[in-house]
């Protein structure tokens, strides 16, 4: 069977794709709620006045006190980074299709993903621990 140009035939990339679709499904719900609350405050504020100004410090610190919301943020960040970087990885591997390029693209995506995840998750968790509970 000819496979000289066809890459590594032992790879199973379908599992990454499946994980990406799963992330997309969860994101549609979680990120949908997040974006709705953050970008439609005027409309949602008519329903619940507490949603009127989500960026006010009082509300930010109130959310920070909740372990569930902090956990949700970390989960959301992980899923969004995987989904986004999987998409970027796909685009780059389409333009640079050599094996060496594939390794570099994968390394770049992993580094960017881990760095952003560490920054985001660290700040969320530390904020949750340190925010004053009044």
């Amino acid at each position, binding site marked *: 069977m000819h496979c000289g140009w066809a890459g590594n035939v032992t790879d199973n990339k379908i599992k990454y794709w499946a994980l990406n679709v799963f992330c997309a499904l969860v994101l549609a719900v979680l990120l949908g709620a997040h974006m709705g609350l953050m*970008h439609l405050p005027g409309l949602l504020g008519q329903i619940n006045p507490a949603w009127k100004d989500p960026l006010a410090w009082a509300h930010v610190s109130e959310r920070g006190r909740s372990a569930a919301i902090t956990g949700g943020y970390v989960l959301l960040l992980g899923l969004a980074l995987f989904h986004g970087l999987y998409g970027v990885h796909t685009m780059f591997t389409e333009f640079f299709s050599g094996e060496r390029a594939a390794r570099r693209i994968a390394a770049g995506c992993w580094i960017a993903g881990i760095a952003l995840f560490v920054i985001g998750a660290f700040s969320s968790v530390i904020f949750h621990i340190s925010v004053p509970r009044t």
Partner: protein
Amino acid sequence: MNDHPAVEQRLGLVRWLTGHRHGIEGYLYICHRISGIVLLLFLSLHVLVTSSRLFGEETWQTLMSLTHSPALKFLEYLVFVAFAFHATNGVRLILIELGFAVGKAEHPVYPYRGSLHKQRPLMIVLMVVAAVLIVLGGFDALRLGR
């Protein structure tokens, strides 16, 4: 391989933007990619900006006051537009890629009506949802926002 020299004519990135004429799903494919890139860039910035809450209320207030400028408000709205489109089109793509929205194989009888026609009602409904979300977001930013 043939013995003649051959001239490469792969379309590459040009195919995304011009190339041959696209159908509506072809344009949605391009928009999905562009909106995805926009959202990932925003996410990176968003992670860095929101991390500033660690430094206390003052830093947070200073950063948030920057986002009240009309230009940044508009950019923020563009992110919302990208999200509304990417999410609704993404729901269509999930249903398609899992093989639900493309229908089963059928006998090819001219004029051919294949999976593109099968998924089109779903596409129209989801694009209407996207349009409604985009209008609501604009209304919110212009009328009800601070």
